[in-house]
């Protein structure tokens, strides 16, 4: 990435927020997924989940570093990850929800990675060259996440009575939070205007086209639509977010600036 001209000026405050939001998604879902480390049902999946968590945290590092540069207030990846308070985080609520069980963990990654994949595809041609470079690296990771989690969703949904029950419960719980992906936002407008990235609302049809066949193959039925809209990407988070941040930020909060 060092050989590329690094974009260091934001085209608008919306541009910064757009990149920050993607960084926060990756960071918070990475943190959640990493909670499985040492707790997975089998060693093989322990490593698979840790690998996916580390991919996400790697994406978060690049995105937050870039967002910090664009913002121009001297905040690096660590300052953004560990020294912001809850309302400053712009991640989708879906990313911060508790893991609950293996079914919900895998289904969440399946739903999110399919969204992320669409986003990375569009961002390959972003006018923000740094973001385009991050997309080129991350799209490969998202493809694997989508494949691995999707394979599990099918095996759990179309598996035993218990695995089906858990997968369906996971879908009933997570599905209402997916509507948030596509709520229009001012940051989207600004980013789309400058050619930085797509309006997230325009990805809805493609996302559903990717998700529905998977859920069908998994013998899962879509819950009825509800008017509820989560608001994490606008900084209004669920009751779970504070606990996640307390754990994630603990060390930097009691030893500010501590380094390895």
């Amino acid at each position, binding site marked *: 990435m060092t050989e590329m001209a690094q974009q260091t000026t934001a085209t608008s405050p919306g541009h910064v927020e757009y990149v920050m939001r993607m960084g926060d998604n990756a960071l918070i879902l990475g943190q959640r997924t990493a909670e499985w480390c040492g707790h997975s049902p089998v060693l093989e999946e322990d*490593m698979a989940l840790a690998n996916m968590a580390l991919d996400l945290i790697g994406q978060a590092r690049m995105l937050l570093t870039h967002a910090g540069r664009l913002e121009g207030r001297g905040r690096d990846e660590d300052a953004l990850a560990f020294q912001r308070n809850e309302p400053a985080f712009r991640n989708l609520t879906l990313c911060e929800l508790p893991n609950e069980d293996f079914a919900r963990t895998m289904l969440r990654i399946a739903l999110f990675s399919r969204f992320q994949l669409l986003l990375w595809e569009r961002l390959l041609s972003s006018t923000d060259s740094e973001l385009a470079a991050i997309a080129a690296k991350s799209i490969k990771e998202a493809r694997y996440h989508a494949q691995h989690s999707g394979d599990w969703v099918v095996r759990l949904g179309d598996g035993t009575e218990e695995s089906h029950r858990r997968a369906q419960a996971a879908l009933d719980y997570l599905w209402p939070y997916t509507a948030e992906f596509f709520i229009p936002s001012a940051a989207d407008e600004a980013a789309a205007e400058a050619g930085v990235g797509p309006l997230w609302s325009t990805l809805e049809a493609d996302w559903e086209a990717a998700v529905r066949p998977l859920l069908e193959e998994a013998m899962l039925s879509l819950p009825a639509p509800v008017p509820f809209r989560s608001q994490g990407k606008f900084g209004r988070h669920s009751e779970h977010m504070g606990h996640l941040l307390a754990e994630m930020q603990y060390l930097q909060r009691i030893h500010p600036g501590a380094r390895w």
Partner: protein
Amino acid sequence: MERKEWPLWEVFVRSRNGLDHKHCGSVHAPDARLALQVARDVYTRRQEGVSIWVVQADHIVASDPDAKPELFDPAEDKIYRHPTFYKLPDEVNHM
């Protein structure tokens, strides 16, 4: 609760194009597709490979360890089978 073990898969990784796949360990997985994925996660995290084979361990037919004397000992005194009695021309460097 009944606890069924997933089948065991032997994992073979080719580290570079042109080299052979080498046995590097095993994984438990419910089926072949996931066996490949977890083999990737367990054995190629540090760029160890460019290709993976998995074989269900049950499908490997192994020689009987007790049959070692009749299988392998007769080769012991046939040192003429080793190509060490030839003088190789200098041009042939990598035999």
